[in-house]
């Protein structure tokens, strides 16, 4: 089950590589959030406890509902164009992602021989970290940078879920709250940028240099 969900997670990354619509990024974030929630719920089939529901429920609320809704609101409020405006061609971006994923999967497979790790979820998570970075680097719009950051965070969460040692729930919840507040502050900053600077692209941020 974990492997199947991780592969769907990987497919969502490919979708990010080929889509040119801003809204599609939000949908992918929702899908990834839902996958992570199911991954957290799955072990509860065998060992159910009510407190164990707190984390998946919070994750669902934050990653599937609150953050996507907030990003959609920003898109509408600021009337941001629906095209992502890449800095490289979509095909080159896809090739880059395929190449990176291949390297990550091969490297993980080699590492899994010396350390006990779940190859597919681990590599999928790490691929998402790389894709998130590429989205930040190769897309102009600042709102897409926020989406890239969230993909990166989802990737960390996915491969974190494959590690045997678990962080205390308080810390997991704290990290979710932190991410939510970061996105909230970024939204406020985007609002200000729209009214103060000349656009929503990273190129608008070039005043500070030596």
């Amino acid at each position, binding site marked *: 089950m974990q492997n199947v969900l991780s592969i769907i997670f990987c497919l969502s990354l490919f979708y990010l590589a080929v889509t040119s619509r801003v809204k599609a990024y939000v949908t992918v974030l929702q899908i990834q959030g839902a996958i992570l929630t199911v991954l957290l719920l799955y072990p509860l089939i065998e060992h159910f406890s009510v407190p164990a529901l707190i984390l998946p429920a919070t994750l669902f609320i934050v990653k599937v509902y609150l953050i996507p809704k907030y990003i959609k609101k920003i898109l509408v409020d600021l009337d941001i164009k629906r095209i992502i405006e890449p800095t490289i061609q979509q095909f080159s971006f896809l090739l880059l992602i395929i190449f990176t994923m291949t390297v990550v999967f091969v490297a993980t497979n080699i590492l899994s021989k010396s350390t006990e790790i779940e190859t597919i979820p681990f590599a999928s998570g790490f691929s998402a970290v790389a894709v998130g970075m590429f989205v930040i680097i190769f897309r102009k719009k600042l709102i897409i940078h926020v989406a890239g950051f969230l993909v990166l965070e989802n990737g960390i969460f996915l491969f974190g879920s494959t590690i045997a040692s678990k962080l205390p729930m308080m*810390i997991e919840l704290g990290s979710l709250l932190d991410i939510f507040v970061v996105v909230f502050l970024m939204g406020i900053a985007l609002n200000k940028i729209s009214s103060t600077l000349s656009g929503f692209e990273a190129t608008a941020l070039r005043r500070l240099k030596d």
Partner: protein
Amino acid sequence: MLLLAILIPLISAAACYLVKSIRAHYYISLAVSVLHLVFSYSLFTGWYQPGEFMLFSADSLSQLILLVLSNVYFWVVLVSFAYLKRTAASHSVSGRRYYFLLLNFYLFANTAAILSNNFGMYWVASEATTLSVAPLIYYYRNEEALEAMWKYLFLVSVGIAFAFIGILFLMLSSNGTVLEGKQLFFTDFAKNAALLNPIWLKASFIFIFVGMSTKIGIAPMHAADVDATSNSPSPIAALMAGSLRMTALLGVMRIFQIVTPSSVHGFARTILISGGLFSLFVAFVFMFKVKNYKRLLAYSSVEHLGIITLAVGIGGLAFVGAMYHIVYNSLCKVVLFFIAGNVHREFKTREIAGVSSVINLMPWTGWLFLLAFFAISAIPPFGIFFSELMIFEGMLFSGKPWVLVVTMFFMLFIFINMGRALLQMLYRKSEHEVTLKEAERFDITHFASIVLLIAVIVIAVVSPDILREHILNISKDFGIKL
């Protein structure tokens, strides 16, 4: 008690939200800062000896960094009310409204990060420090401040995410050992470091180092920090340069403490030395071209954090020097940013070319600026002279004397360029002579600067036993034999 020290600033932040008067915010914050300072000092001197509580404890390193935080925070709060009354640029009502609330939240997050004994807790609190300081960077509500806030928030958040990957790798390194499945307590990992998987431990160190570098402000991840420090109000810049960077450095030192008894130690030292030298190189290059005096001070922070990182990597006597350097650098940076704030307020520009005859027009500010420059440039009897001497001696006998040669070369040119810029500001006669509305009066920032500069001398000359004892304890925790 530990928990109380963390929670009181949070309660005072809530109080600042409920109360409307800025003056009341100031008194609440000042009272909390005094309490915090008393708590940190009691902890440091051993009057209060706490045990472990949940995910928190206080070893010698966290006690030292906590005292640095408390001290910087106290002075920043003390001068803030006067600063808010006469800011350097226009600001919004909401900026003032949330200023002290965010300062209290900053204290809460930093205290939690410094006292945490667990990597997970440290990460959450460290991210919270970013959230508290980002809106403060945007205090002036202008384009530069907005850009600086965005870059800081975004790049540091990505950096912190990388640090989290490092923490997960650290967990992976414990697979198959007694630590598997246990919580990420620094002390447990440091005790059993020899058992950890070296490949994952190396990966963990790199990710935590690179991730936290965005917050420490060392090259090549220094850009956001330089922008943020140079565009925020002076008390906030002082807070960031004097304490936030140290809190971030603590994360790198914790992972370094863990790798110290392991086979990864040599690798980690190389990374720290490279990071430190590269920071010095970046400061060296930018000191030639920088035209903004607050950015100049921000690059000076890159330089000094580079020296500290380098010295931690060198080890031995240099490590001891680095611990002293943390204290002195923090005190000097607070003075420099306070004084730079005074200059900005009167001249309404951050450009070096736009400032002239400071020593004539603003004698208090001018002389203190000159003294603070001497202090940060390691002129005796200021403390940095002694800490750098220790670092240089450590480098010389470390088996890598070339590091000393390279470091001194960079530092010489940094000193010359920084001196040239500051002396121009202080003494240059401008063609368009600037006149101030009234003669400069002695104010709270001058008082704070004088006290802090005296502290930099007194600590170095008296060399308190308690500080030496703490630093030796920290060195012992890092396996350093002197």
